[in-house]
């Protein structure tokens, strides 16, 4: 259409091309990683860089990563187990607390909320030592359960979902109460369905954070068989030494599930981050 080809859209087109060039900077390391994971080892550092492998070795590389001497599928199962459980528990605990802090008017709720919010300021590393001592004492050290519990009590989740519950009209709650429903029924049948999109956003974020978490497994997990992907990735790297094509295949494998989760939930992830950020 001739009208859309005004000077403005030319400017827009040029800026789009420019931004595209800049975005290459952000994607290039990932592209290099992906391409390298398909190569035979001797081609990895050939210069000029072969952006399309001359000799394809993809199947051998990925087979070695997934089913070789240090099989990734085991650690995948660990990561999925820890990730899914942490996400479910954390979403539940946060939603309950968020409902309690926004829809039930009970004595001291404001003070309690302030205390919970204040703990958000505590950097996770400032409490590692007592947590470690506690875990050694009560036998949660070197267990998935311990890891799951560490990720399950998120102040951020409570805060984020509370914002959404405050948007639910109090009349819904009151009229349900008139009908004789108690808070658990109201929460389950009215509250939760109304904030479902927010819970989904939080769940995706929590899954990504748990999957990528390196610090907690590093400190609270010791047995190799309990490793999650980030620790397995590091161990694989040190075991593989100079086999960079294999290391890159492992890196692609570590990032891929998150990429899928992110692309599926892209809109809600970005909105959730923007919302949590601007309001939080």
């Amino acid at each position, binding site marked *: 259409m001739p009208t859309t080809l005004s000077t403005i859209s030319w400017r*827009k087109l040029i*800026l*789009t091309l420019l*931004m595209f060039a800049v*975005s290459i900077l*952000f994607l290039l*390391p*990932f592209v290099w*990683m992906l391409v390298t994971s398909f190569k035979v080892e001797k081609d990895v*550092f050939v*210069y*000029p*860089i072969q952006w399309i492998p001359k000799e394809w070795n993809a199947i051998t590389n990925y087979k070695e990563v997934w089913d070789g001497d240090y099989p990734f599928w085991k650690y995948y199962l660990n990561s999925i187990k820890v990730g899914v459980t942490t996400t479910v528990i954390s979403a539940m605990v946060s939603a*309950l*607390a968020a409902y*309690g*802090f926004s829809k*039930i*008017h*009970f004595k001291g*709720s404001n003070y*309690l909320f302030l205390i*919970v919010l204040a*703990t958000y*300021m505590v*950097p996770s*590393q*400032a*409490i*590692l*030592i*007592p947590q*470690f*001592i506690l875990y050694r004492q009560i036998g949660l050290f070197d267990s998935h359960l311990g890891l799951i*519990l560490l990720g399950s*009590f998120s*102040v951020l989740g409570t805060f984020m979902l509370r914002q959404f519950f405050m948007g639910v009209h109090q009349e819904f709650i009151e009229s349900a109460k008139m009908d004789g429903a108690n*808070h658990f029924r109201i*929460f389950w049948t009215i509250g939760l369905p109304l904030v479902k999109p927010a819970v989904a956003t939080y769940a995706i974020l929590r899954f990504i954070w748990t*999957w*990528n978490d*390196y*610090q907690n497994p*590093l*400190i609270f997990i010791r047995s190799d068989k309990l490793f999650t*992907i*980030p620790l397995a*990735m*590091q161990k694989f790297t040190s075991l593989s030494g100079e086999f*960079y094509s294999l*290391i890159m295949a492992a*890196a692609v494998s*570590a990032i891929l599930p998150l*990429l899928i989760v992110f*692309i599926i939930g*892209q809109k809600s992830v970005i909105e959730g*981050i*923007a919302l949590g*950020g*601007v309001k939080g």
Partner: protein
Amino acid sequence: METPTQTAVKGGLMKKRRKAWSLSTGENLAGWLFVSPMLIGVCVLVLIPIIATIVLSFADWNFVQGWDGINWVGIGNFKKLLHDDQFIRSVRNNFLFLFTVPIYMLISMVLAVIIDRHVYLKSYFKVAYFMPYISSIVAVAVVWQVLFQPSYGPINEVLKALGFSHPPMWIADPNYALISIMMIVVWTSIGFNMIIYIAGLQAIPKDLYEAADIDGADGWTKFRRITFPLLSPTSFFLLVTGVISTFKVFDIIAVMTQGGPIGSTSLMVWYLYDTAFVNLKVGYASSIAAVLFLFVLLITFGQWLAQKRWVNY
């Protein structure tokens, strides 16, 4: 004449008033039940540990000594910290690291302004710039480690081809290691900051720009007079969270440099980890943790004071 329902409602109300006391007890009980899982978790895993950290920071204690080995030394640990070169170096590195924050904020703001209004394929750009943020930091660090490889890594190959005969050794060189890490942190942080800036931009009323157009303002004036000041709450938020996050940088150091070469990339949290979990000096490490907590507390408090003064709402 009253209808039966009206009577019922009236009766109900009266009953309700009589039941008011028990009702509020019910509300209290329900409230506590709803928030208790969160509350117990936060108490056991955050509140008690932070108090324990502060208490332990006054002790000289090693993990392997057992409970009987605790030796209370008052502020001895903190005195020692003041003369600990490695600690001072880590704090200095932490302050150098602060430079990443304005750099990635500026880049993110420019990118956000362009992407929000002046390009096609907006969602492509959001995803592309966001990729580093969602990727596992271990995988990202491993990839950069190889890219930065001094003798045959791709980055130095390109630099050599461009005519630099002696490109830097990057993370292998004490003079460049911290800057290399800072560059990667800038690279990973831009996506998050940009997304927040885009959200901030969308909250600016469009009619302000229309009014400026009528007055004949050019793009730069509009940016200086409308966009920049109205983004100040967003910038402020990003500045504070950014500054706090530099005090928490750990993963990338642990994977890429382990604080080396010769302590050049040791940050406070790395030194804390090294002292507590490698050298097992629990009391001394707790005093580092207390200092870390103090820094974060001061920044948060400073934010609270500054917010009303500087931010245009």
